[in-house]
């Protein structure tokens, strides 16, 4: 082993930080487009489930995340809202993360502006409610009782989109965008298994493995995993946006980390051999 490799061990980690920063910033700034995004069957399941929702019906869109995971969850949240509104499906948004409601607001406002939808008539943000699984369970009995007012304090019986919405029986689909607890897993356990409501989910990449068993059993009809899942979905809805732009940066960062594992081990081998000599 060459002495150069063993000396790699002394590499200042700030060089690694600089390399990561450049590999992320340059593709985001320039948009180099390394490779096309190919949708997976999981993403197609998500897309198909929304395509099957009849126009004019109302869907529950849970945005259970906060700004810490915005890079992964926000693009898929926005793409889902755009997809639903493009099909004239009404949306009832809510969040079980205290920091989540402003993000749901942004998503719904942005998508509504693009598709000419009106707050209260085509969508509503019910906001945040403490209680995690209890809120999910309580909504099975009565949504107006669980959320008597929307995020702005307007009584739900005065909101047109909420007319006729009593419980989960009024929804053809539940869309969960989730960063962890409470989120997709709890929606499956409390709602899908109990009320048999079809459900799709968009989750962070690190938590995605958790949901594969639910996908295999059909409890989840589709799954978007991380920014890559979001990018695949953006391709299917023909609206490349935030996630698609992030794919080059993510591709290069992943290759770089794989390279770091390789280099780190080569340096370790080099040092081991020179010690034996």
């Amino acid at each position, binding site marked *: 082993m060459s002495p150069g490799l063993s000396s790699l061990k002394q*590499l200042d*980690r700030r060089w*690694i*930080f600089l*390399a*990561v*920063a450049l590999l992320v910033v340059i593709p985001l700034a320039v948009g180099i487009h*390394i*490779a*096309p995004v*190919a949708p*997976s069957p999981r993403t197609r399941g998500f897309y198909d489930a929304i395509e099957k929702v009849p126009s004019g019906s109302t869907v529950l869109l849970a945005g259970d995340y*906060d*700004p*810490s*995971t*915005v*890079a992964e969850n926000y693009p898929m949240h926005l793409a889902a809202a755009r997809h639903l509104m493009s099909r004239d499906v009404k949306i009832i948004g809510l969040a079980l993360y205290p*920091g989540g409601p*402003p993000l749901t607001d942004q998503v719904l*406002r942005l998508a509504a502006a693009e598709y000419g939808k009106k707050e209260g008539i085509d969508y509503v943000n019910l906001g945040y*409610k*403490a*209680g*995690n699984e*209890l*809120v999910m369970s*309580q909504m099975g*009995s009565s949504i107006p*009782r*669980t959320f008597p007012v929307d*995020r*702005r*304090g307007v009584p739900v019986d005065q909101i047109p989109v909420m007319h006729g919405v009593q419980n989960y029986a009024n929804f053809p689909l539940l869309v969960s965008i989730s960063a962890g607890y409470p989120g997709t897993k709890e929606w499956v356990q409390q709602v899908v298994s*109990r009320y048999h409501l079809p459900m799709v989910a968009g989750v962070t*990449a690190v938590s995605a*493995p*958790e949901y*594969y*068993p639910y996908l*295999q059993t059909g409890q989840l009809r589709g799954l978007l*995993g*991380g920014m*890559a899942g979001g*990018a695949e979905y953006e391709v299917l809805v023909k609206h490349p946006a935030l996630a698609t732009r992030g*794919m080059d940066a*993510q*591709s*290069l*960062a*992943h*290759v*770089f*980390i*794989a390279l*770091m*594992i390789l280099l*780190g*081990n080569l340096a*370790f081998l080099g040092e081991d051999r020179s010690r034996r000599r």
Partner: protein
Amino acid sequence: MKRQIPTLITLVAGLFCLIGFFVPHPAIRTLYDDIQQWVIVIVGATYVLGVANLLRINLGQMSARARDWPFKVVLLVGLIGTTAIGFSEGTHYLDPTSRFTWIYNTFYSSMSSTMFSLLAFFIASAAFRAFRIRSFEALLLAIAAFILMIGRVPIGNAIHPAIPAAADWLMEVPQNAAKRGILIGAALGVVATGIRLILGMERTYGGRGAGGTS
């Protein structure tokens, strides 16, 4: 009596909620819903307690000039300032141009995203410094990591379509089998703990410390 009454309340409430989950009859469902509503109210009230506790502890440490006390000042200024501004804006606090929204977008959102983004830097550094292939198991882990990291992003498909296919197989077969086992094991553990609580065999919730079994 101090032991029997909490145990009895736990037994009745636990059994009732268990029955309420499976029986949709209005006679049970109405009370079941009421109990859930009470719990939601109690959970909401704990936020007030949490803030009160936060104030009590941090004000105490500030006045005693404890270690890192300037950070406590930042915490309390943030907490009180955001709350005061939110209240001062009344029902308009959610407007896109409100000062409350500005605080959310400028401070909370940026700082939360930054904390999470730092992971990319530390993972890259840790991959170089700490991921050592010293055993056969570590080799398997490294191979799986390579396939997944490359196969999960578009560049994997561009290199060779077999890479994302292998990544999918890893996720759907070995990973899924292991995850399912863990989930079933954990669920059985939860059931066992629930039964112990309902039957009064587990009383740690009553403040008796670990191992508080009868």
